[in-house]
Each structure stands twice: as structure tokens, then as C-alpha cells.
């Protein structure tokens, strides 16, 4: 009896101790300093990649998997919270279990700090000297890790551009893009301000009430997948006027204005009113309330939507080579008073970071892999699906006789004709299926490859620009003062407002603010949707009053104060970085 008691006690103690140990994690195994990474790895491993940006869950396939396999003898098992659904559920579950993954892509600031404090990420200081490709972005790495006492994270979206230069390519991130062919049929009516879009879009919808597939066409089609602090599609038009969100504040890129999103005269409510009026005119897709981004995207592909807030939605879905040759496609219409927000090149990297998990199976290989992502080869091969790097050299592009990079036939097929099949020696399969599922940009595609002297993104190459002139772009260009690109037009007409890339991250909310924020944003999203689909002006106004009252009751003001302070701090950082790089 006594013996069993002792055994039971011992078992209980061991159990308790081991369960505690799994929570604290610790610093992982001791790392040894390396001067140079091995050129080959003998043992094949599969690594877990916890990737906050990934839209694909499972083992990486296709040509990117093939490159990773050949170079590092490993497979990437992508764990995507976006696919798993439900906010931070997956993150919290894995973090509680004491391990996020071998390779981690997460937000800097609060999340990274927490992971460092909890011992879930590895201090890669011992490997850093061997990370040669990152050496050219050393300033950004140092800045990211300056207060952490080690090298825990590696910044994404780094570049060697000036922070006051736009980080986007030929197109801005935001902009009023419409079906140019229909706009042309209306005789290119002038559009003074945002609200003047409505009659134009109504005429366009009347002109083209059904798409080729027989489905009805709507000017606006909304979706809710990305709703965060507010209704995401209702924020976008604010970006046409130089505002971007920081918490519940819309801050102008040049620091000249800060608005509460619940300001009845502010940009956010203005946009809700715009959609409400559009809905009264029958311009809003009734499926908006239930559809997701994928459905929306296929509607764009089928020509069922007339307005796009972003070039990378409308154009990438609808502007196929065939459509453009027929003169059909999305192009930006100029609003006379627009001043489009542009993200400056982030001097110290973007919001996300790469990090190595403290329990990584082979941390050295992880470090080598991360380093490779910053090499020219990695920058070409790995880019988010929407950013448009040129893919691996030899497959999709090659340097031509004149010494300029040029798309191969396969590259043209893959990028311009909507899909190509990759040869077996590159891993086979459709090109699109083999794109890096990391969906995270290491080096901005606008950055220049020292070997070719041209940017990583093919859209900047003269060889590409010479081949893509078509009926649509020519017509657009002729009507836009012979502009060669949207970005060029905006810059020439001073309709672009660049927010210097200060790599600012808002400090973590204290837990009370965070809780208030989460409750308030739920209410804001809920009422925003209801307001867009309100049945009458009076209902719209009463919902607005109710929203403001409820939000204030739940502590909106307190959170707003925090956000206002952050917005101003962000502006200070922008001013500072501008001066730093100018001098």
C-alpha cells in the first residue's frame, strides 16, 4: 500500500513537472556558432511552418517545393491560421502547447515580444554571421531586434529603396479601378469626387446588366473575410484620399489629419453612406453579406463586378490577355480630388517577421533557408502571390542576348495567359500550384537584382513592357495624358500621397484596452454591415446613432485615445525616418 502510494506520488510529480516544462519551453537546445552553412543536407526533414499570412494549408507542392527540396532537402508543411479559420484560435492553441512550428511567420511587436518572453522563438545570433544574404539588410535586422538582446526575428519586405519612395510597382495598392470598356462606352464622363462615381456606375450597370455567364452584374460586390477593426471594404475609399487605418483612427499619410472612424463627418461613415446609397440604387450585390473572397474573385473573373478598390483584385482577375486585346478590363478612373495613399518602401521591413521556433528540428537549416529567401535566387522564387516576382531563372525568365532579363515562353504563358504547366525536372504541375505558399515577401519585388540591374518584378522590365501594349492599355493611356502606368499618372498629377516607410508598429495594447477594442470592433463591424443594407435614410441614421452610443458605452473613447496617440507617434516616426535618410 505504502509503495503504491509512493509510486503514485512520484508519478504525479513527474507528470506535473513535465506538463509545466512543456509550458515554459525554455531556450531550446544549445546552438553552436556557424561561420558558413553546409552546402548540402543528408537527411530529409519535413518542417512545420506556422505562417500567419499563408492561404494554403498542407505540404508545399510544385516547383517551389522542388527548389526547396534540392537546396535544403526538406519539405515545408504549411500551417495556416487563415485557412483554419477563427482569428487567433490556432495560434493560441499551438502557443499553449509550447511549440508554434520550426519556422514562424508572425507579426512583430506584441506577438513577437510575447513569443520571445515565452521562450518559443530561438535566438539565432549564433547563425547570423553565416547569413550572408541578410548582410545587406543588416540595418533592418538590427533595428527589429534592438531591444530583445538577441537575433530573434528577420524583417520581411525589406528593400534598399528610400523610405519616401512608393513601395508599390506600376500600380498603387489602392485606387478606384472600374471596367474601362464600359466607362469608354459612356464617353469617359468626368468624375469630381467619390460620390460622383455612383451615377457613372449606375449607367455602366445599365449598359451591361448581365455577364457572359448569364449572371447579374453589380457595381459593388462586398465581402467580410478581412474585416478587422472595421468593415474592410468600407475603409478602402478612404485610401483614395490619403488615409489609412491605425486602430480606430484614419490617419492621413502626411500627418495633416486624424479622424475617428465613428466621426459622422469622417471618411469611414462617408463610405458607409456611399454603399448605402449605392444599395438603394441597386448597385450592391445582394450576396455581399454571405460570400467570401474566393467567390468574389471568381465573380470578378466572370465580369460580374464593375468596381475594384485594388488593382490586384480587378486587374488580376479580369485583365486576361484575351480580354485586354478585346479592349476589356479594369483600369483606374481619375477622381478629380483623389490623393491616393501609397506605402513608402519600409526602411526597416514590413509588419511580419520570420523567426525560428525554439524547438526547431534543425535550426541551422532553418537559418540557412531564411537567409536564402533574401538572396536574389530566393527573392525571385519566393514572393507573395499578388506581388509578382519573376519566378526562378531558367524556368520563367532568362537573360537575353542584350543582357536584359526577359520572360521565357513558359513565363509568358504562366503570367499573361493564365497558367502554364511546369516541366518535370522543375517539379511538374501547374505553375500557379507551385507558387510559394509562404505568401510572404522577403525582399520587395521592386528592389533591384544586382546581377541584372533590373527589379525582381518582371513588370518593370523593358522587354516585358514592349510586349504587353494592347487595345485596353493604349486606350487608357491615350485618355490619361499618355501615362505609361497608373503610378506614373498619379505621380505626374500629384495625386499620390506617400507615407514614408518608417516600419512603425503600434505598441501592444494593455489587456483592458485590447478587450475593449475587441468588443467595440465587433459592434462596429456588425452595425456597418447593417447600415449599408439599411432600408431607409432614417434607419441608416438611427443605426448610426445606435452604433455611436453602443460603442461609446463599451469604451470606444478610451481605445480611441490610445489609437490617436499611436497615430501621432507613427507620424513622428515617419518624419524621423525621412530626415534620417535624407541626411
Amino acid at each position, binding site marked *: 500500500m505504502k509503495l503504491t502510494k509512493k509510486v503514485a506520488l512520484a508519478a504525479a510529480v513527474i507528470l506535473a513537472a513535465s506538463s509545466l516544462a512543456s*509550458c*515554459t519551453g525554455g531556450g531550446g537546445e544549445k546552438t553552436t556558432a556557424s561561420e558558413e552553412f553546409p552546402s548540402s543536407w543528408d537527411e530529409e526533414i519535413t518542417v512545420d511552418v506556422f505562417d500567419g499570412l499563408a492561404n494554403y494549408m498542407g505540404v508545399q507542392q510544385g516547383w517551389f517545393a522542388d527548389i526547396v527540396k534540392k537546396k535544403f532537402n526538406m519539405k515545408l508543411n504549411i500551417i495556416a491560421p487563415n485557412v483554419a479559420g*477563427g*482569428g*487567433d*484560435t490556432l495560434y*493560441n*492553441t499551438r*502557443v*499553449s502547447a509550447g511549440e508554434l512550428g520550426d519556422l514562424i511567420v508572425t507579426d512583430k511587436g506584441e*506577438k513577437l515580444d*510575447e*513569443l520571445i*518572453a*515565452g521562450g*518559443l522563438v530561438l535566438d539565432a545570433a549564433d547563425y547570423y554571421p553565416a547569413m550572408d544574404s541578410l548582410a545587406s539588410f543588416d540595418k533592418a535586422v538590427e533595428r527589429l531586434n534592438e531591444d530583445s538582446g538577441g537575433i530573434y526575428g528577420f524583417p520581411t519586405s525589406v528593400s534598399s529603396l528610400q523610405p519616401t519612395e512608393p513601395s508599390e510597382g506600376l500600380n498603387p495598392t489602392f485606387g478606384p479601378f472600374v471596367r474601362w470598356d464600359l466607362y469608354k462606352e459612356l464617353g469617359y464622363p468626368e468624375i469630381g469626387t467619390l460620390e460622383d462615381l455612383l451615377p457613372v456606375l449606375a449607367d455602366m450597370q445599365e449598359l451591361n446588366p448581365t455577364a457572359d455567364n448569364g449572371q447579374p452584374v453589380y457595381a459593388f460586390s462586398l465581402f*467580410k473575410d478581412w474585416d478587422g477593426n472595421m468593415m474592410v471594404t468600407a475603409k478602402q475609399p478612404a485610401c483614395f484620399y490619403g488615409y489609412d487605418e491605425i486602430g480606430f483612427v484614419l490617419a492621413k499619410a502626411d500627418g495633416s489629419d486624424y479622424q475617428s472612424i465613428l466621426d459622422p463627418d469622417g471618411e469611414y461613415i462617408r463610405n458607409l453612406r456611399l454603399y448605402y446609397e449605392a444599395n438603394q440604387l441597386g448597385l450592391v450585390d*445582394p*450576396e455581399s*453579406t*454571405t460570400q467570401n473572397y474566393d467567390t468574389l474573385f471568381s465573380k470578378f473573373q466572370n465580369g460580374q463586378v464593375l468596381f475594384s478598390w485594388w488593382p490586384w483584385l480587378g486587374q488580376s482577375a479580369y485583365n486576361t490577355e484575351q480580354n485586354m486585346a478585346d479592349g476589356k478590363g479594369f483600369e483606374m478612373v481619375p477622381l478629380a480630388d483623389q490623393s491616393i495613399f501609397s506605402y513608402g518602401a519600409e526602411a526597416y521591413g514590413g509588419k511580419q517577421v520570420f523567426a525560428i521556433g525554439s524547438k526547431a528540428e534543425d535550426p541551422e537549416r532553418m537559418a540557412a533557408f531564411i537567409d536564402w529567401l533574401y538572396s536574389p535566387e530566393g527573392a525571385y522564387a519566393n514572393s507573395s502571390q499578388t506581388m509578382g516576382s519573376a519566378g526562378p531563372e531558367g524556368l520563367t525568365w532568362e537573360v537575353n542576348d542584350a543582357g536584359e532579363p526577359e520572360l521565357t515562353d513558359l513565363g509568358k504563358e504562366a503570367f499573361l495567359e493564365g497558367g502554364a504547366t511546369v516541366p518535370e525536372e522543375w517539379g511538374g504541375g501547374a505553375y500557379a500550384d507551385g507558387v510559394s505558399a509562404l505568401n510572404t515577401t522577403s525582399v520587395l519585388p521592386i528592389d533591384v537584382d544586382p546581377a541584372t540591374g533590373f527589379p525582381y518584378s518582371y513588370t518593370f522590365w523593358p522587354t516585358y513592357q514592349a510586349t504587353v501594349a494592347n487595345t485596353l492599355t493604349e486606350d487608357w493611356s491615350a485618355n490619361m495624358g499618355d501615362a505609361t502606368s497608373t503610378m506614373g499618372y498619379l505621380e505626374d498629377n500629384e495625386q499620390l500621397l506617400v507615407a514614408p516607410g518608417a516600419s512603425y508598429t503600434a505598441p501592444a495594447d494593455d*489587456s*483592458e484596452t*485590447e*478587450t475593449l477594442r*475587441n*468588443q467595440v470592433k*465587433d459592434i462596429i*463591424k*456588425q*452595425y*456597418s*454591415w*447593417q447600415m449599408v*443594407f439599411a432600408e431607409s435614410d432614417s434607419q441608416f441614421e438611427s443605426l448610426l446613432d445606435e452604433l455611436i452610443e*453602443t460603442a*461609446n*458605452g*463599451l*469604451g470606444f473613447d478610451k481605445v480611441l485615445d490610445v489609437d490617436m496617440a499611436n497615430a501621432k507617434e507613427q507620424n513622428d516616426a515617419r518624419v524621423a525616418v525621412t530626415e534620417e535618410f535624407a541626411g
Partner: protein
Amino acid sequence: MTTQAQSQVVLQEAAMGNLSHQSKRRRGRRFTPAGGRTSFTLFLCILPFLVLAFLFSYLPLYGWIYTLYDYKPALGLAGSEFVGLQWFQMLVGSPAQMAQIGQVLVNTLAISFLGIATSVLPLAFAIFLNEVRAPWFRSSVQTLTALPNFISWVLVYMIAFSLFSSSGLVNDVLMDAGLVTAPLKFLDTDQNVWLTMTLWSIWKGLGWGAIIYLAAIAGVDQSLYESARIDGAGRFQTMWYITVPQLMPTYLVLLLLSIANILNNGMEQYYVFQNAFNKEYIQVLDLYVYNVGMTGNNLSLATVIGMLKSIISVALLLTVNAVSKRVRGESIV
């Protein structure tokens, strides 16, 4: 699942009751070591259940400690900040917050009461089904109505979506027939949310709920029917005067169990059906806890609200107990 667990507890309590009676009797009659050994053996018999009850009902109460911390999973409980009663204060400190929880409680109770009010439907369904003479028809109806119980709520929502969304079958038919010009909003509206939710759970649970009554009907003594028929009772009279009274005890037990479960209406159904338009009326307590904890990322506050549920449940139980004491002269606890 919950009902099963509940009935297990009932059985267990019954067993424990019997046991204590027995041992009391024994103690009174003959206090010998042999008797002691018997009661120890019997104690060993219930030990596993005591352990289970402890593990699943009492041990989790340890989790209430999270209410006193600002819990961050990455830091663990030891690394998280101790904040005392901050979350409780936050909950009671703001009228808007209280109003929200009030609305959530109203939703929970309303949906539960609608569920209880419609709990006679499986009973009626079973009685009528039993009267069907053709066995093939009876069993196929039974199978078809029991099947939805095995479909997950996610799939039920898919069915609901393809039927009732703005581009769903129903709206297509109505539009094509020219009955409506704009699609009707069945899913994204705050009109009649409680009712539609109840209808969906009836659709899903009716056939399944009827099974237990069908079993009870099979156990009714046939001679009762025979003698009733000899006395000239018609079909509806035998249903009303024999079947219904015979089923009453079963019905009352199930009713009691569902009243005990009044705050537990689960969250799957409401989770899949929730959207910005119906959220205000669909958010039941379990879903609210999930939304605050998982979606809103505040596990500590979610625990506080979860605690609230336990406290209300205990209060309800004590009320019912007091009523029972007064009415029947017997108390449950």
C-alpha cells in the same frame, strides 16, 4: 451527449442513494467486520465514478484561477500578470457591457424555452407514427426523420445556405416566378431568429427524439388497448386515454433534464448561423463565451463569463429545489 451524461449522473445518484440506504440498514442491524468489508467493496464499486466525477466536474474548477490573471498563452499562467478582480469589475462596471450580457441571457433563455415548449412535438410525432399501419411506410418515415440527427451543423448550414441565401434555390424560384423583385433575406436578418433557430433544431432532432417514445410505446401493455377497444374506444380515444398517459413519465423525465440544461444550448448551431445581421439575437451564452475568448482573444474574460453561467445554474437549481421542497415536500439536494 449532454443528455447521456446527465442520465448517467442520475443513474449514479440513484445507485449511490440505494447504497447508502443499504449500508444504513446493515449498520443498524449488525455492526460486524464482515459488514464493513462489504461496504468497502461496494465503495470500491463506486470509486471509479467518484474519480470520474472529480476529474470532469471538480478538477476543471481549477481553471477559474484564469479569471484573476491577464492570461497570455505564450507566457503561460506563471508568466501572465496577476490582475485580481479587474475582469469582474470591467464586466459590472459598464452599463453597455451589462446590457450586452443581458441580451445574451435573454437569447439563451428564449431559445431554450422555445426548445422546451416544442418538446411535445417528438411525443406527438411518435404517437401518430405508431398509428401508421403499413410497416414499410412507418419504418421509412422513421429512418428519414432520424437521419438529420447525424448531420453536423456545418452541413445543415450548407443546406440552409443553398436553399435560403440570396442566390439560393428558394429565392431563385420566387424570382423566376415573378413573386418577388429583390431576393428575400432569410439568413441575414434579425427577424424571427429565435423561431428559425428553433425550427432548424426541430428539423434536426424530431425523428431522433421520437425514438425513445416509440420504445416506450412498444412497452405499453397491449391488454390495455384490447380492453379499451372492447369498451368501444376509437383510435383517437385509445391514443388520448392510453398512449398519452403511459408516455407521461418518460416525457416528464426528459422535460426535467432539458430544464436542467436550460443554459446549455450549445454553440455549434448558432456559430454557423451567426452573421452581422442576426448576431444580436443569436448570440447565446456558449457562443458569447467562444466569441469573447477565441475570436476576441481574451481567455480570462471568457472564463469570467463562463463562471457566470455556473453561478446562474446553481441559482436556478436552488430555486427549483426550494419550489420542489414547498410543493412536494421533497428536495433534490
